[in-house]
């Protein structure tokens, strides 16, 4: 194997595949990235039996072939190289890499020990890469991080006709996003529970590439229990999480008793400031009345903070307390200049929705937060 490649193309490809490699692999070869050159294209692959990622790029090849080297090391090296063409060649049991005046020799692992990457499941449809990336980031933030509840560490992807719905919850908040997509068959009806971290990483990488992302999801047969995404020259597959995602749609309140409208940027600023005195799990308190909003945190013995801001409020005065982190996550995920907070009761879920400058609620995204009960 021998080829010449642009430094940026190589660094991007290696960085992306190396990112999903296990830090403590069950077998040493899984710490490697596989470089394969064939017909003027370099394919870089990584796989840990859960997630596979593969990217290909044009190269000037002198000799076809393959080599398996430590992904982490190669990623660090390529990142540090000067912006010059890189010459790569497999020499015996080593990989030689020359860029400008820098020269690296890396040991290789036996290519024949490397597992075959899973095949892509059947294509289910396509979605705009940028829209998909934004939607995933709005939802993945609400997914659980506690590995003792694996079910909640996933994002539920529902594909019904031309509508894609993403849902995630960690029991304390819930995010729902609906977006249009193009199913392969008009009456498609598919569901999958995708590890949130992998989905978020994948969507974030594919978004800036533009164009469409192809979603591959099988109902039985090849690729069962797997989802695939293809965008540009990149493809990734992930194993799905098992289990029945809780029926969360009925948690969306069907009415509200009060509603507040606030500029997202101002509210974020105020909450951040006041939350400085709140410990990780202590609440910030939001008191709404026709005079506006007062945000407070801290107890009688601890440090305290309060700040008032204008807010359009309809309803009886109400005080509700939230984990500041949960509230900030929700505000950061809103894709509009105005936040609309709908309340029923200080112990019932509150709903954040985006709105335009005119205060008109936009459909498509909802972020539910469960309040913190204060007092008994």
């Amino acid at each position, binding site marked *: 194997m021998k080829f010449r490649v642009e430094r940026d193309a190589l660094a991007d490809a290696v960085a992306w595949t190396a990112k999903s490699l296990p830090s403590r692999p069950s077998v040493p070869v899984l710490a490697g990235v596989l470089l394969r050159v064939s017909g003027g294209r370099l394919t870089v692959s990584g796989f840990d039996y859960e997630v596979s990622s593969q990217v290909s790029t044009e190269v000037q090849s002198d000799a076809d072939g393959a080599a398996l080297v430590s992904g982490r090391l190669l990623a660090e090296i390529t990142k540090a190289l000067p912006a010059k063409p890189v010459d790569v060649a497999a020499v015996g049991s080593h990989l030689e890499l020359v860029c400008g005046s820098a020269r690296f020799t890396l040991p290789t692992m036996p290519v024949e020990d490397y597992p075959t990457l899973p095949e892509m499941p059947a294509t289910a449809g396509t979605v705009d890469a940028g829209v998909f990336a934004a939607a995933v980031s709005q939802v993945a933030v609400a997914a659980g991080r506690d590995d003792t509840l694996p079910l909640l560490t996933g994002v539920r992807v529902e594909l019904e006709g031309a509508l894609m719905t993403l849902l995630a919850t960690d*029991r*304390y908040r819930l995010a729902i996003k609906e977006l249009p997509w193009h199913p392969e068959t008009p009456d498609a009806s598919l569901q999958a529970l995708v590890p949130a971290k992998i989905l978020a990483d994948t969507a974030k990488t594919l978004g800036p590439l533009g164009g469409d992302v192809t979603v591959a999801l099988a109902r039985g047969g090849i690729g069962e229990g797997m989802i695939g995404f293809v965008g540009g020259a990149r493809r990734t597959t992930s194993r799905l999480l098992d289990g029945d995602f*809780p029926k969360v749609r009925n948690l969306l309140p069907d009415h509200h008793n009060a509603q507040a409208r606030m500029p997202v940027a101002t509210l974020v600023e105020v909450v951040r400031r006041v939350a400085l005195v709140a410990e990780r*799990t202590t609440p910030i308190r939001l008191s709404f009345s026709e005079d506006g909003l007062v945000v407070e945190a801290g107890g009688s013995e601890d440090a305290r903070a309060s700040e008032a801001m204008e807010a359009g409020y309809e309803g009886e005065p109400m005080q509700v307390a939230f984990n500041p982190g949960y509230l900030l996550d929700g505000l950061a995920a809103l894709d509009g200049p105005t936040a609309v907070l709908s309340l029923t009761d200080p112990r019932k*879920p509150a709903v954040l929705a985006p709105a335009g400058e005119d205060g008109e609620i936009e459909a498509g995204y909802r972020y539910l937060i469960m309040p913190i009960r204060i*007092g008994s």
Partner: protein
Amino acid sequence: MPRGRPDGFGADADDRGSPILHVDMDAFYVSVEVRRRPGLAGKLVIVGGAGPRGVVSSASYEARAYGVRSAMPGARARRLCPDAIFLPPDFSEYTAASRAVMRIFREVTPLVEPLSLDEAFLDVSGAQRLLGRPAGIAELIRRRVRDEQRLPCSVGVAPTKFMAKLASTRAKPDGLVVVPVDRVLDYLHPLPVDALWGVGERSAEALHRLGLRTVGDLARAPSGMIRSALGEAAATQLHELAWGRDPRSVVPEHVEKSIGAETTFDVDVDDLAVIRRTMLVLAGKAAGRLRQAGQVGRTVSIKVRLSDFRTLNRSRTLGTPTDVTKEIFETAWSLYEILRPGDRIRLVGVRIEGLLDAGRAPRQLALGGRERGWAEAERAADAAIARFGAAAVRPASLLGPAGQLRGADWTGAPGPWDAAPEDPTGENTDT
């Protein structure tokens, strides 16, 4: 009423500069047992220490004459005192008695700092106008505790907390010692060095090697000599104490820093099912005590002692404070599963730290959570247990084939985690 003592530290001593009282119940658990079974009075009675690895929680003075002490292995106590009557501890009874006694203290002064179930510091400076001099107040407390609760206690009256505690030790059993402010050094200096707070076996040995046997020796020793033996911080503190100086004030409402329970297995175990059930029992005990104390805790920790006595601790802080057995157990068990000691286990413990008042503690509600959840179910179970006994309600996995309790002893003796001197809370230690 006893007046005077031959040593001049009796109730008639000058108490004008001695407003701090240390009240210490005499052999508290035993006294509570004797109260409900008067036939036990004057007998060799030991609470706790049953089972091959049980630990003595409390011993009657008759049994102490044989050398039996708190926190001593039960097997040793049985060897020293083979005729003793061993009783299983009944903490709900002791807690109730403790509450009644503390209530009497609080009727004397609001400045009550409980140290454990059976001892407390009182500052009676402000109560003197109403109730008279400190020694009189001490006698009043002793009389009320005896008449109303039928329990004996001893009181030390002194200018500082440290001196009051030393004084109550000399007052035992059922006595009163007053240390006048101008006789603190007369009282203190003849005592052995290990009478000082913070002087354990090893520090005492180090001081003995320097030829320092009494507190007076230590007080007069050059400070550099002590510093080199015990270090800067300890030397400074001991020097202050040796001169009777103790600036700490009585802080009312002592808040427990942690609540926990642990069990030493009769035989080292490696059966996961047994360990799991035991941790469920311990989580239940700890959570029950939390609920009884009206507290919730944020951090769950486990302690695992292996057969070679290596001790491992792991802890996790929850997103929201809890007093729910189920949550405490699940956290404790997941910590254990991560730990996977892969060796036989001698002891396990479950502890909750970062305690807060349950009423004031904010509680993160969960989506789709019922208004009434585990917390309410367990409170209902507490009520049933209070009425019908510990066997009334418990997790199904703790039921044996015939409804017998499996695994560890539900009402069992406190483990060394409760009674050992390293326990920072001193909870359940009965001296």
